[in-house]
């Protein structure tokens, strides 16, 4: 017998498969919240996506550790948090004091907001957001889209758009505030 085969994983029972699928499905419903959390900790959207993806591999592997009746979001966040620290350690051996302070504050903020938005409510909000984005002028929409590109900065956006840094900063603040207002009004009005 080859050495590697001694460690081959035993076949899952149908009940275990069912449990794993249920846990993974529930965890996947938290994906948006987990991505937001990882992004807030890392300050880098692409790395946050990688971290969340690797956290889901852990969820698939450790599904039996999830305790029924406890918060799936909190359990998944604890996995994401570990993956974030792994990612940070890979990049820098030492985490600066100010980064550590900010991570603690961000984690606390998310721990306070434990609620999980239902998928249907989230889809509804995205649809309203889509409608509100259509109401933006092409110039404001392109400003917003430029701010969502990897490595975006006020200076870089300003150079591309022929705007000052201050004009970009104020413009983005206004467009984000207007979008939030528009989405909230549409949701309240049931549009």
């Amino acid at each position: 017998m080859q050495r590697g085969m001694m460690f081959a994983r035993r076949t899952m029972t149908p009940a275990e498969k069912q449990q794993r699928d249920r846990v993974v499905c529930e965890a996947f419903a938290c994906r948006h919240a987990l991505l937001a959390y990882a992004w807030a900790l890392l300050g880098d959207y692409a790395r946050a996506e990688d971290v969340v993806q690797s956290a889901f591999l852990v969820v698939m592997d450790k599904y039996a550790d999830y305790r029924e009746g406890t918060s799936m979001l909190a359990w998944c966040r604890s996995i994401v948090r570990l993956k974030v620290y792994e990612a940070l350690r890979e990049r820098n051996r030492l985490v600066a004091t100010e980064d550590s302070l900010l991570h603690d504050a961000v984690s606390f903020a998310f721990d306070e907001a434990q609620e999980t938005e239902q998928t249907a409510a989230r889809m509804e909000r995205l649809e309203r957001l889509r409608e509100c984005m259509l109401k933006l002028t092409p110039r404001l929409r392109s400003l917003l889209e430029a701010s969502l590109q990897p490595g975006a900065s006020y200076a870089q956006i300003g150079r591309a758009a022929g705007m000052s840094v201050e004009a970009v900063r104020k413009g983005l603040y206004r467009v984000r505030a207007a979008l939030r207002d528009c989405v909230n009004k549409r949701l309240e009005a049931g549009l």
Partner: protein
Amino acid sequence: MNERFDDLMFRHLTGGLRADEKEQLASMLDEDPAARRELVQFVQEQTDLMECVAVKCAMPAKR
């Protein structure tokens, strides 16, 4: 949402904060529950926008 917080959050999410600004943002979050709620909402909205832009959310829906 206020302009200063919006500015700090945007630059935090794009990795553009200086060390002193990170400390300032951490202090704001530590001291103010409203700032913590705002942080969570801001990041969720930005995540929505990323998703929207990725799937061409701003294009008219097919009926």
